[in-house]
């Protein structure tokens, strides 16, 4: 500091590099173009909009009061079926996804072809919506709960497998190397080395998917795959809005309850 004052360096600090800024600006511009183009070209029939407030009021006045007598008659059984579909579907997905995610984890299976195969199954499972899975399974197995369970399961395999596979890849090497050094067979390394490390992640992914599946299984009935959606569909087709209102209220309370249950369990296991 005793020397002559340092000559000020002409330098401007920026948060992003030029290429980062160009990439960001491109995305902003593309987003703007996409939004403007979509709003301008999308087909909206303005005549329908004029009476929208009246229609909405009409909708709610038809929904209330609910047709409570309908609950014990049909909704209760349909609701239980929905819960079973969601839960069984989740369990089936766990059973199918578990071995696949061991195949997908690059630190457990050291074979790029098997890794890729498992990843491919996950991606294709996730890119088909559960309603589309339901359409396919209803065509194959006919309407009913079986199609619902299978569609929930097939949609969930990708989700569970991807998240659980990532948890496996983050497993610590130490315990696994220790077990390998004792000469433990691969199956024991899996059960005593990997599993204790990833078990909390497993249950947490399972709960998360179960929560989502409760929501999804409520609509599967619209295409005939069983559950409360079947009751909803017939109420809609008959324009019994007081039944529709009751079904929606039931779905809402079940979803809120599930969320409370899953968050309580999750706080306990993590």
């Amino acid at each position: 500091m005793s020397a002559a004052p340092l000559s000020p360096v002409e330098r401007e600090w920026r948060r992003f590099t030029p290429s980062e800024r160009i990439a960001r600006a491109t995305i902003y511009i593309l987003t703007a173009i996409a939004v403007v183009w979509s709003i301008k070209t999308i087909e909206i029939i303005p005549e329908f909009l004029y009476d929208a407030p009246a229609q909405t009021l009409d909708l709610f006045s038809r929904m209330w009061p609910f047709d409570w007598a309908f609950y014990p008659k049909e909704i209760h059984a349909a609701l239980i079926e929905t819960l079973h579909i969601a839960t069984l579907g989740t369990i089936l997905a766990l059973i199918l996804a578990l071995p696949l995610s061991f195949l997908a984890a690059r630190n457990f299976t050291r074979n790029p072809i098997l890794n890729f195969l498992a990843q491919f199954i996950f991606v294709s499972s996730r890119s088909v919506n559960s309603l589309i899975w339901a359409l396919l399974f209803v065509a194959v197995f006919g309407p009913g709960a079986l199609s619902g369970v299978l569609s929930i399961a097939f949609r969930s395999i990708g989700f569970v497998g991807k998240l659980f596979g990532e948890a496996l890849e983050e497993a610590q090497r130490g315990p696994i190397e220790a077990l390998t050094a004792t000469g433990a067979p691969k199956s024991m390394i899996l059960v005593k080395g990997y599993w204790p490390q990833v078990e909390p992640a497993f249950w947490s992914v399972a709960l998360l998917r179960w929560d989502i599946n409760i929501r999804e299984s409520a609509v599967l009935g619209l295409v005939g795959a069983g559950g409360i959606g079947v009751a909803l569909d017939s109420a809609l087709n008959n324009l019994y809005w007081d039944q529709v209102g009751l079904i929606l209220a039931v779905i809402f309370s079940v979803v809120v309850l599930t969320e409370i249950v899953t968050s309580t369990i999750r706080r306990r296991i993590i």
Partner: protein
Amino acid sequence: MSLADPALPAKPRPPAFPVNWTSRIAWIGLALYTLYATSILELSWARFVTGLDNGAKFLARMFPPNFAADKLELIYTGMLESIQIAVVSTFFGVLLSMPLGLMAARNLSPGWLSWSARALIAVFRSFHPVIVSILFVKAVGFGALAGILALIVSSMGFVSKLFAEVVEEMNAKQVEAVRATGASFWNVLIFAVMPQVMARFVGLAVYQLDSNLRNSTMVGIVGGGGIGAPLFTAYQRFDYDVVLTILLCIIGLIMLAEMASGRIRRIFQ
């Protein structure tokens, strides 16, 4: 331990791998439940096998996919409408999620406001977009608008819930520092809150675009516009070859979107 007194009684060593009873009970419970529920739902192996027979016929009718020109045109307009629905609903849904998320954040809003915002979010989140679009089809008629409104609602449910969590996790010191300069509420928002949470918010928005694209292909089943309507019509008419063509288009679109959203998220990290 190696210098233990031989006079003391030897303590039995604890097992190397103690039994985890909670998890064992959970497994047994799951297995029992599976047996019970399978019998309740009348899921049987025989039914499954009969289904597989049907499945072979179904697949035979699906192949080869139908690429006739008139079908392709129908699919093109449907897909385009689905993309438009996804873009518009993500834009407005994400835009509206920002104030709703800030209102729901407990560290920024007074208790009554955050509770009412949370209740609204819970209502938005609990219904599948397809159910919401049934209601909007009744309110605003058939067509893309019903789908857009339904997806705006579900986007708001998802994005504002996670955005509120992001805001609650942010660093309070920067907010205090800006507040200490005498900044107004809006200045605190713009200079202390937004810079901390913006990157995560963009990530949520991109994720939501991805999810809206998936759902915009579905709202058409109940009249909400997009590719879902031709898909469902073809399905009900047993035109399974057209169904396959549409499914291939949807899957292609979703895979493309997934790749693009991964790219965008990396840019904004």
